[in-house]
Structure formats: C-alpha cells, structure tokens
C-alpha cells in the first residue's frame, strides 16, 4: 500500500538547506588550494573532488525528496543521504589523503567544513528516518 506524506516538512526543508549549503560552501569557502605554479595539483585536490561529487548527489537527492510524495521512496532517499554523508565524513584525510601540513587550507577549511556539514546532514537524515519509520509504524497500528 502506498503512503503519501507532507512534502514540505521541517526535516525536508532542513535537509535541502543543509545540502545546498554543503555543496555551495565546498565550491567556495571550503575549497582547497588551487593549482601550483607548475600547474599540478596538490594531493588534497582529489579528496575535495570526491567530496564535491557526494555533496552534489546529496543535493540532488534532497531536491528529489521535495518532488516525490511517496513516503517509502522518501524514506529510502533519506537513508541514501545518510549513507553518503557518513562516507563523506571519512573521505578527506582517511580514505583519500590530504596534504601533510595540518595548517594548510585543506585541513583547516575543506576537512573541517566537510566534517561539520556532513555531520549536520547525517543528523538531520537520522531524525527524518526516525520520524518516518515512527509514522509508518503508528499508521500500521
């Protein structure tokens, strides 16, 4: 049986705002250093690019959640957003290395900015999942 829910709930809005901020801030404030004089990039560039792809996907999924009214699909999208944010937390510095000096931009801005926003998105996704599962369960009752 399909269950439709309100599309513009508070967690939906929070997730969309956070995802948009995540993507835009990674593109601007949390961007690592640009290319070196010889045109080559430092190692942190690859880590940032990977995180940026995840941020773009998270934003797309958050927008799709606004369009779709079907509760089960929205629940699935929230789980996907949660998984992506958790993965994003571990990309800079753990899965893909950053530059070796911690006073560099990639450590101070990219890694920390990514950490804070990915944590907030993951927390919002968890709240959304709990609320949706709870609503589903209480409807069944």
């Amino acid at each position, binding site marked *: 049986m399909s269950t439709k829910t309100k599309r513009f709930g508070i967690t939906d809005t929070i997730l969309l705002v956070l995802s948009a901020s995540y993507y835009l801030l990674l593109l601007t404030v949390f961007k690592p250093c640009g290319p*070196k004089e010889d045109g080559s990039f*430092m*190692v942190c560039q690859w880590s940032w690019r990977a995180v940026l792809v995840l941020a773009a996907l998270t934003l797309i999924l958050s927008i799709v959640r606004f369009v779709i009214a079907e509760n089960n699909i929205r629940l699935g999208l929230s789980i996907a957003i949660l998984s992506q944010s958790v993965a994003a937390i571990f990309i800079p510095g753990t899965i893909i290395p950053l*530059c*070796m*000096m*911690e*006073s*560099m931009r990639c*450590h*101070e*801005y990219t890694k*920390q*900015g990514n*950490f*804070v926003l990915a*944590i*907030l998105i993951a927390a919002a996704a968890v709240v959304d999942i709990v609320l949706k599962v709870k609503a589903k369960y209480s409807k069944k009752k």
Partner: protein
Amino acid sequence: MRFEIKLAIKNIKGHWGRSAALFALAALLACSIFGGSIIIRSLQNGLRSYEKRLGADIIVIPEEAAGEGTFESILLQGIPGYFYMDMDVLEAIRGLEGVKAASPQFYLASASSGCCDTLVQIIGFDPDSDFSVKPWILENYGKMINDGDVIVGSDIRIPENKSFRFYNVECRAVAKLGKTGTGLDSAIYADMNTIQRMMESADKIGFDYFESVEPENAVSSVLIDVTDGYEVRDVARKINLEFEGVRAISSKDMVSGISEGLSGVSKVVGGLIVFIWGLSIAVLIVSFNMIVNERVGELALLRIIGGTKKMLAGVLLWETIIISVGGGLLGNALASLVIISFSDILRDALKVPLLLTNGWIIGIVFLFSVLVSTIVCVLTSVIAANRITSKDTALILREGL
C-alpha cells in the same frame, strides 16, 4: 511518568512552532556562554603555551626582522621566513654581564618539498648550548636528536617512511612536538649540523638567502637566559644600546603585547555574550508572558478538573526545563562542533596563539552553560507562571475559557 511531565511533553509536541522558537532561544543562550568561554579560555591557553615554548628571557634578532614583523609572523602565524645576522653577535652577548646562557637559532624556509607541497619553517638549534628547544624534545622524544634527525611541530604529519628532504638533504623525522596553538606547530626542528648542511646546499643550488652574511657565520636569533638577580628588561636595554643592527626583545614584552590584543578580543567576546544574553532574556520574558496569557484558559481547565496550583506550575516548569535543557544541549553540541572544527581558522584570523582548552574543561563548561541557561529560562518562566497560577480560576471562568 508523572502527569506533569507527560502533559508537558504533549504540550511541547502540540505547539511545536512555539516550542521550536523557545528551543532556539535556549540554544542561543547556552551556546553563547559556552562558545565565548571556550574561546576566551583557549586564547589564554594559547598565550600560556606560547610563553612556555619561547623558553627564553630575551630574544635577539636582526633589526629589520623586528621592524617588518617577520619574526612575529613565524611565531604566531607560522608564515615561513628567514633573516640572518653575523655570528659575532652571539659571542659578544655571551660576554655580557647578566647573561647566564645564550644559544643561537637558525631559520630557514624550505623550498617546496615532497612532504608538504608548501614552504615549511625549519628551525636549527645548537644542542650544546640550547636551553629552549631541548626540554620540549626531551619531553616528546626522550633523548636528544642526532645529526640528520628532525623533530616536527604538531601540524606536520610524518610520512610513512619518516623521511623528509630539504635542499637535497635527507632527514629522518623522529618525533612530533605537542600542540602549542602557535605558528611553531608548523615548524621543523633540526640540530646545528643538519641545518648547516641544508644552508650550504641551499647556497650551492642558488638560493641566495644569506645576502652579505657568510652561511657558516650566519645566525638568525640568539636566545638568552638571564642570570638570577638581573632585570630582564635592563639586560635587553643594554644589548639594544651596545649592538647596532640588532633588536633584543624580552619575551615578557612579546607576550604582554599579544596579551593586550587578547584583552581586546576578550572584551568583544564578552560584550557579545552580554548583548546576546540581554536580548534573549528580554525576548524570553516577553515570550513567556505572551504564552502564559494565551494559555490562561488551558490552565483554568486543568484547575477545574482537579489540578492543584502546584500541578499547574509543575506543568509549566517541566515544559521550560525540557525545552531549555534540550535547546542548551543542542546549541552547545553545534557550538562544540564549530569551535573545535574551526579553531585553527579562528587562530589564523585573530593572529594570536589559540590552543583549545582541555577536553574535561570543555565538558564542564558545556554542562555549566546548559545549567545556567536552564536556570535563566526557568526563572523567566516562573515570573510568568506565578502570575497565572495566582490569578483566580473563577476570573477566567467568568470571562469564558
């Protein structure tokens, strides 16, 4: 669960807009006191660690390095720099009255190296005469470093093979120093022989750092330990009078200069906290009064079905406690996340040493600020609750619910 708590939870859920606004205010109250206190404590902590790491009573540097602020940039912001003066100064200083010990240091900015993709400050010291870096190395490494060994600041990650290469000189990283919250965290320390080899190699491959000074006779700074009983400032003044082209700065003056800057920052942070608190408390008082007025009928209803005045006050009190504790915890969690994550950016922006305070102090301040903001919320709500619970239910019944 007690009726008051159960009803308070239902009331919070039932009026989520109102609850969310109060929740946000409680979060703001708690996080302003928490964030402000942690920043101020971390600045003080940074200053203490800076003073400790300087480790000398007087530092003598070339006059132009003092004038251009190069030395301060190295110490505070970790911007690599170099300046040199003739080694003769060292021997002359050693002969001065009141100088217990004097030890040279060499500053070299690395060229882009495999380790860091950026310039690194390399600081060379003389293990025989040093009294400033040695204690830190012994604390972190347990013994003195050998020729070719380097010890790195806390911001530099040691590669897997522990090897660094500066100006074609191969070095082995043996230990990492503790964090100081200063520019010295991104510096690399090496002994005299190692740094001499680097300087000579740099000279050979065309880096003309030394200008008129011969590399083997170059020194960047002289650290002085003053004999007990002598005034540090007097010794510094004497050096400034007797030697041309150098500047002797007492570390106390360096620290007090930053300390004055910090007191300005602390005043701004303190002012902000007072402003946020004043505004929030005013908004809370108005909000609670409005909410209670709106809820007069609701409370009168509870009274006529058998609720005591104490029970009514209990419901209002529990609502406030749940909202303010929840808001405080969330506000502080967000503030911790931001402050801990971005403390280095703040340090760079303020250009002062900033070393995050201990975890357990953060924990205590976290709980304390939640407690204080909860007490303030409860007090403001009690004023409003008292007004309504002392109002005769009959007056409300007469007016209609």
